[in-house]
């Protein structure tokens, strides 16, 4: 996907990312209505969280071409928080 995005000009890329973020946000909201609760909703929400976070980090914050350590640090933030949310949820139902 990154290769495809790199071929677009900066405005096209930003607009596409914005539309993707809006779409998955609405998807997450719809999931919270249709799924009563449970592991599927939890995992899907965390995957969407990590996806949206990565899009913002790479394309809005423009960290995709800076020192990899910064990008990894920021990406790890979303993954670690998502991980804690999953662990807390699973500990709660076990």
């Amino acid at each position, binding site marked *: 996907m990154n290769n495809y995005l790199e071929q677009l000009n*900066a405005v096209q890329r930003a607009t596409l990312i914005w539309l993707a973020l*809006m779409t998955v*946000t609405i998807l997450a909201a719809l999931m919270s209505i249709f799924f009563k609760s449970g592991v599927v909703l939890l995992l899907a929400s965390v995957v969407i969280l990590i996806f949206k976070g990565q899009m913002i980090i790479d394309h*809005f914050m423009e960290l995709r071409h800076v020192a990899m350590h910064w990008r990894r640090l920021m990406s790890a933030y979303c993954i670690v*928080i998502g991980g804690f949310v999953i662990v807390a949820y699973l500990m709660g139902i076990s």
Partner: protein
Amino acid sequence: MLSFLIDKNPDAKPLPGDAAIWVFILAELGVFSLFFIAFAFAKMLNPEIFAEGYQSLNRVAGLINTLALITSSYFVVRAVLAIKNNQSQLCARWLNWALLAGMVYVFVKMWEYSETIGAGYTAHTNVFYMFYFLLTFFHFAHVIFGMVILVAVSRKAKRGEYSIDNYSGVETGASYWHMVDLLWIILFPLVYVIH
């Protein structure tokens, strides 16, 4: 100790904006991470209180605010692209659009608070509402601070004080605003979606 922050890749671009804002962003993310983790584990320990609290939330307001902040962040990206093309006035206009989207967030959040408080729920009601008000109000304060920064950057852009050779200030403000957006991207599923 901070050597892991120094890249060995000679082709790597520098961080956008002033380096100091990135230290500030990391500190802010660190503080918020404690709140996020505390919320998740408090929910684990008090599932019934959190389930009941979740049902009383205005989830439409949560959705509108997420869309407003994402859109605002997009407008800020357009402002940065404009100044990179030496279009200072266009940069100011995009920043004003970003501020307008920020105002949508502010009004919707105040509507949400007035509904919640009007229904008799406050930070003292129970542990859910304590975390709800703590997390969302702390984030709300960051949005207000971010809007103050955007106003200052927009006014400077309007006066033509930024150009293709000097736009670090625009990138610094943009980086802070994207951090505010990133934090809400985490807060939204945590508070308004997962139940």
